[in-house]
């Protein structure tokens, strides 16, 4: 049989809409199985809500309710106290995939890739056929609007089924209600755990949650102040790739290489710009568009060699040590909590920053022989899946925990002990390993930073454990002397039939306080 011609083939090829693509590739977006889908729906909604509240400068207050409708169907209702959405945008935000402004931004946000909430709407539609119900009100003086909508998957456009205005005292903010097919699980991979971890990383948020079994959770605020809002920035010269540089050179409005460097990158001033050009042997007055390939390469190399300030940190919204400690303390009744926040670093031109925390003992004591619990976060969003491929897990496994007092069979791998280890990475662009945003790519620079952060916190843990051991030893010593010294006298009296009037208390006190006799390590302690 003769092959098809290109013309014939072209007849078969047609544009695939994003929505259609999603339909066939839902696993890429975190909807690969019913249990995970339920978490993803909540996650997308929570991410959006928290971003919206923070952007509007409001302390977030989220109410989440999941009802079990039977036959693996769940109704999810998520309400926030954010700024609300103007009527014109409501259908697009919820009914059009890849709608939003976050994709091209170099500012840290949760829903970085912007596939977001509309994917949940589509998922609901695909699994239960039920439309999403969106209700929003911008402030006390405006009218509440409600849309019932679906997504037209062929054209990637919202399809409004019903719209109305309400005046029933709906509190300002946005509410989404969707019905999806899912599966509710408990323990590690669960909505409960996801929200608990979210509450820890966002201790300024108040999250009320009612799970399908009717249990109510109230994750209260530990802090009543929002962290500073992250600013948008330009790329940092360190780590930029040639392709990116090349595209920037073509697209710039600057007329000279020098001004291009100064305008399009952060932290390059006149002096460093000139030095880059000199080192690259590129004419600073040349038109950026006219740089030849080898000139671009030289420019890139020079950019890496010149000493340039770290990227500004106001584009990042790290979780401060204080916030981590507060977050862990409010949800975990531990005996010891510490946290570390590293200085920002750069990978491939993107600033990132790592912070971590360790909670040890207390209510965790019963998990003495289990592996520690790892809480991974990227831009304040908990990562529940694909732990083993994540840079955070890798750094944790490569850390020598025995040195710091945790049990680590074979000196690598996840340590064991009554501990929760919290690691947060924030960046203007988190390098996820897939679109479902569950695992951070293992860039050496990132792994290294995570490891350094962990080691810093681990040193605090070691100090704590050694103090505790010392205290325990001291206590035990005191107990042994106070148990047995009176018995020495008592039995000597019984044996000698003499000395009934004596007391050993003063001698005992001296022994305990002054260590009168050298306590050699040899011998049998008999305890």
């Amino acid at each position, binding site marked *: 049989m003769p092959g098809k011609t290109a013309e014939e083939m072209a007849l078969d090829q047609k544009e695939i809409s994003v929505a259609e693509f999603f339909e066939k590739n839902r696993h890429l977006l975190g909807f690969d199985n019913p249990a995970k889908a339920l978490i993803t729906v909540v996650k997308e909604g929570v991410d959006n809500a928290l971003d919206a509240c923070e952007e509007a400068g409001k302390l977030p207050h989220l109410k989440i309710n999941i009802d079990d409708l039977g036959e693996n169907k769940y109704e999810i209702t998520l309400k926030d106290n954010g700024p609300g959405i103007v009527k014109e945008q409501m259908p697009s935000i919820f009914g059009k995939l890849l709608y939003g402004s976050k994709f091209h931004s170099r500012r840290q946000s949760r829903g970085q890739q912007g596939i977001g909430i509309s994917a949940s709407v589509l998922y609901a539609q695909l699994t239960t056929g039920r439309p999403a119900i969106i209700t929003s009100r911008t402030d006390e003086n405006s009218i509440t609007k409600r849309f019932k909508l679906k997504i037209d998957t062929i054209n990637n456009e919202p399809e409004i089924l019903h719209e109305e205005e309400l005046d029933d005292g709906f509190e300002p903010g946005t509410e989404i209600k969707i019905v999806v097919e899912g599966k509710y699980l408990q323990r590690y991979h669960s909505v409960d755990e996801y929200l608990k971890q979210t509450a820890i990383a966002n201790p300024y948020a108040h999250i009320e949650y009612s799970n399908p079994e009717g249990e109510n959770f109230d994750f209260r605020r530990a802090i009543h102040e929002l962290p500073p809002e992250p600013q948008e920035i330009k790329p940092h010269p360190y780590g930029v790739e040639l392709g990116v540089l090349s595209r920037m050179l073509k697209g710039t409005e600057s007329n000279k290489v020098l001004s291009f460097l100064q305008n399009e990158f952060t932290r390059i001033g006149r002096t460093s710009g000139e030095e880059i050009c000199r080192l690259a042997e590129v004419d600073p007055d040349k038109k950026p568009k006219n740089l030849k390939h080898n000139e671009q390469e030289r420019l890139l190399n020079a950019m890496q060699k010149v000493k340039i300030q770290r990227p500004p940190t106001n584009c990042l919204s790290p979780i401060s040590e204080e916030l981590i400690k507060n977050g862990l303390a409010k949800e975990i009744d531990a005996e010891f909590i510490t946290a570390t926040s590293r200085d920002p670093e750069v990978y491939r031109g993107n600033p990132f920053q790592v912070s971590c925390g360790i909670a040890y003992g207390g209510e965790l004591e019963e998990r003495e022989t289990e592996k520690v619990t790892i809480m991974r976060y990227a831009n304040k969003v908990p990562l529940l899946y694909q732990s083993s491929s994540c840079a955070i897990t890798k750094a944790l496994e490569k850390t020598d925990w025995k040195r710091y007092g945790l049990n680590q069979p074979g000196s690598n791998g996840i340590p064991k002990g009554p501990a929760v280890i919290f690691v947060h990475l924030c960046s203007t662009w988190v390098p996820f390993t897939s679109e479902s945003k569950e695992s951070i790519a293992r860039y050496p620079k990132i792994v290294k930073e995570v490891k350094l952060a962990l080691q810093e916190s681990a040193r605090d843990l070691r100090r704590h454990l050694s103090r505790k051991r010392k205290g325990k030893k001291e206590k035990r010593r005191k107990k042994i002397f106070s148990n047995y010294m009176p018995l020495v006298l008592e*039995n000597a009296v019984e*044996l000698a039939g003499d*000395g009934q009037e004596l007391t050993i208390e003063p001698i005992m006190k001296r022994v305990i306080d002054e260590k009168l006799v050298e306590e050699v390590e040899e011998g049998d302690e*008999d305890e």
Partner: protein
Amino acid sequence: MKSSWKRSKKVMKMSDEEISNELTEIGEIIIQKVRENEVPSVQIPSRTTSNIVYDENLECYVLGGKRTERSAGNIRHVKRLAQMLKVASFCKNELMGTERHVTKRELYYISESWGDKLKFKTQDRSDDLVEDIEAMIGKPREDLKINPKAKGSIYGDMTLKFKNPKGETMAVNCLDSADGQSIGPRTCEADIIECNADKVLAIETDGMYNRLMEENAHEKFNAILVNLGGQATRATRRIIKRINEIKDIPTYIFTDSDPWGLHIAMVIIAGSAKSAHINERLATPDAQWLGVTASDIADYKLRSDELREVDLKRVDELKNDPRYTKNDRLVQELEKWEELGRKSEQQALMRYGFEYVVDEYLPAKLKELGAPGF
């Protein structure tokens, strides 16, 4: 006959009152220190191997001069000191002046009643403390009325006087019991009121002991027969020593022809390392090993087995043991075993019939060693 028979206090049993006084002294040391506002402690002869030395004069292992301090001010000692005083107090107040004896195992269980703080976690801890007290007062635990195992038995014309468990004084002739008088705590410290024998013959195995009883060996040789039943217990060693010294009669030891049999004899002669702190009261330096010797295997054409690796290793160990090195005869025997590579049992003599051992073998051996009446 040798003129070195020692008659000394070593063979005399301490009275309960004397033991009580010794124990009381330990308590007094503690009381005295507390009175002087000092941290209470006692000195205990060290029983570590580095302090066990072979005494050439006494011809047995004894403790050297090293002492360790057990102090109430040491976290690692205070519990054991309290327990030691409790054990001493228990012996003094519950056992002395009574007819009661306890075994080491009983003592371990009795400690349950002393409360969680003082009770022993394992029996080796209580055994160890008993040995500490033995070493401190220089007396075996039998004197504290903590009994060794009763294993051996004794048969022959000898009358012993002791108090029975009810406290009644009674006399028993060792011929009056069908299988011999068993050697327990009361027997081993009994008064020997009459002994018409002129030698003691100690036998390793039950089988040979029974054979000699049935063949009338005690009468033929005018001997007291002692059944060791393998390695001799402290009680058996004690009565052998006491007969030897009090009655001034020689002791002969009849064992299998292998290094283990020879060493059974040696422990009776020179004591064991483990009982170094009281060997003076247990060892019978004048006792002699009669056989079956290595040379006997060939001389009497005894049925034999090959020496195993553990046997040869044991031979090697014994050749370097100070108890053997100065005894040319025994060293030669050890070398003979090595050379032959064979060992034999006492009962191998049975190939010549029931009477052979009493009619031929033992008379020849006793003559060789210059026993009385041969």
